[in-house]
């Protein structure tokens, strides 16, 4: 494929990758502003640890049949807490099923998470972030919601933004692309975080797309895209904060690909040993986002073994309390099937509702 003549370059693009802390938690250059915010760093660390403790607990609860199918976020904690801590309460999150770290940070309660994964819709009636979207299971469909919500914010002249989180697998779906394109052309306050954890169930990143990076998907939508080390809390936070400030200030949409690794099975219904090498997983074990941040905090005198001990105790107490609350939650009345279907139950359904009440006794 050689070319003979008159051609010119009409567009050029670059994808940047950012990290501030290396695998050992050592600064690899000048640090961002957030590195100086001790309170935030400690809070972030605490929620990352809480996430991981909760995660382990949830896996156990699934094994003992107390909740349903469950997907761990082991190894991805820095991404969720990184971007969530860059959001304001008035920003809106559009999450998928693996972002409970971010949900916890934003005030979704552990009890609510357990209710949801335990098969109870009340788990999506968040007492905390009332305007956040519920967990989106049909992959990438929520990208369009994020765009719509961001449109509403822009229309009303609000200084808010939407964060839409999705996976490497999700980045192959048309909904994602249509959303990127619309976010670009409408110049909306929305930031897409693509959590590239290298696997979409059994499909490895390289069989998901021939694109060298997932950040470059943004180019198709005419918006900036960049990569961050997703196991570096500082990098995720800093780049998201920058993207969000820009977005809230009318600077338009942005995409961040966060490189991380799914340490666990896809969900409890999955057995990753069928399709991936234990060695690959082991190789990633050394690069732990929580350990990285802890080393950094300890180096700055912001954390120590005592603090850790107290934290673990506190986490476990919170989790146990939430579990109790979860288990003590009285069942929903069966007619609730009808009661949130429409604002008011249409007359045509009144009889079915009666029938349900009659027959749920028969069951």
């Amino acid at each position: 494929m050689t070319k003979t003549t008159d051609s010119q370059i009409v567009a050029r693009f670059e994808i940047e990758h950012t990290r501030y802390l290396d695998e050992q938690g050592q600064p690899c250059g000048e640090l961002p502003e957030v590195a100086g915010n001790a309170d935030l760093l400690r809070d972030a660390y605490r929620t990352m640890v809480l996430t991981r403790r909760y995660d382990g607990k949830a896996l156990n609860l699934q094994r003992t049949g107390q909740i349903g199918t469950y997907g761990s976020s082991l190894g991805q904690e820095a991404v969720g807490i990184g971007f969530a801590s860059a959001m304001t309460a008035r920003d809106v999150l559009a999450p998928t099923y693996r972002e409970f770290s971010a949900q916890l940070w934003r005030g979704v309660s552990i009890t609510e998470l357990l209710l949801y994964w335990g098969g109870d819709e009340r788990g999506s009636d968040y007492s905390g972030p009332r305007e956040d979207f519920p967990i989106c299971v049909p992959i990438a469909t929520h990208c369009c919601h994020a765009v719509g919500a961001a449109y509403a914010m822009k229309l009303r002249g609000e200084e808010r933004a939407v964060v839409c989180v999705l996976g490497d697998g999700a980045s192959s779906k048309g909904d994602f692309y249509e959303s990127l394109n619309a976010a670009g052309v409408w110049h909306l306050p929305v930031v897409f975080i693509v959590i590239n954890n290298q696997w979409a169930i059994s499909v490895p990143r390289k069989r998901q797309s021939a694109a060298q990076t997932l950040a470059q998907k943004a180019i198709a939508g005419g918006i900036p895209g960049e990569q961050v080390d997703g196991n570096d809390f500082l990098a995720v936070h800093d780049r998201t904060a920058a993207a969000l400030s820009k977005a809230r200030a009318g600077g338009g949409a942005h995409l961040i690909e966060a490189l991380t690794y799914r340490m666990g099975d896809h969900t409890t219904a999955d057995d990753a040993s069928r399709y991936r090498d234990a060695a690959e997983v082991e190789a990633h074990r050394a690069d732990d986002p929580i350990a990285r941040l802890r080393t950094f905090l300890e180096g700055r005198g912001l954390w120590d073994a005592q603090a850790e001990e107290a934290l673990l105790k506190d986490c476990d107490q919170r989790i146990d309390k939430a579990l109790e609350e979860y288990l003590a939650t009285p069942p929903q009345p069966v007619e609730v099937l009808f009661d949130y279907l429409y604002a008011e139950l249409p007359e045509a359904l009144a009889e079915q509702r009666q029938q349900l009440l009659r027959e749920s006794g028969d069951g």
Partner: protein
Amino acid sequence: MAELTLVEAVNQALAYEMAADENVVVLGEDVGVNGGVFRATAGLQERFGAERVIDTPLAETLIGGVAVGMAAQGLRPVAEIQFMGFIYPALDQMLSHASRLRTRTRGRLTCPMVLRAPYGGGIHAPEHHSESTEAIFAHVPGLRVVVPSSPSRAYGLLLAALRDPDPVVFLEPKRVYRLMKQEVLDDGEALPLDVCFVARAGQDVTLVSWGAMLHETLEAAEQLEAQGVNAEVLDVATLKPLDMRTILDSVSRTTRCVIVHEAARSGGLGAEIAAGLAEQGLMSLMAPVQRVTGYDTVIPLSRLESHYMPSVTRIVNAVKRALEFA
């Protein structure tokens, strides 16, 4: 009071509600400067601005999903799909999200959106431009599906849809867009949703239809009247939830029922109506229910289209068979 076509009545209802409620926004392909390929949104962008009357990129999944996101954030989006044949990419959003947002979040988030689309055949349109797949949407719990049959119904029902706190799929029979004019007072009065309208009172047989086919059905009723048959004609209007009560009441008086729709027969909305009769009206039926419908075939290109569409004669013949049955 102006004489309006159906498409003008749609336009008037949109303009009325956009003026009354600043949360109403209109989005879709070519809805802006162009005013929609059928002119349903003509003049709206000029009057309400490009921020509220939004030309979207060519992407129907997006159109459905953006409307869901807007609605969750308190807007009242009215999304237009250019033709029903292109609505399917938006089905996922309507089925998996719009219809469920209230249920899933126990009322925390809701989805007051309208998805409008011109639908149906009979205008000799190109391939994929004559779809009537209303039954697909009418199967989805949590949705409303509304079909106007005349300018005044379009005005009143669309206003009701725009004010409804839940998602409505509003299907406009494009063959009727400019078929007739009616005086439509721009008074902001909505018509009730969830009820069938009696388009013509009668006692010998109940004809049930909606949208464009209501006109063939009414004409059939006229022809039958001349032959001494007094037909009642019901305009279903809200296809989901279905007002089976009104249909059953009518059939309990007339004892015979013919259902008319242009969608393919199997699994069309006519099936649900006939099923309702078999379940709840069996004892009043003196003759088999009949469906006069499109065939279970792909709707053909224009040259054969008229053979596919239910005709007045087909309806009249079905009624005669119903009446002759003893």
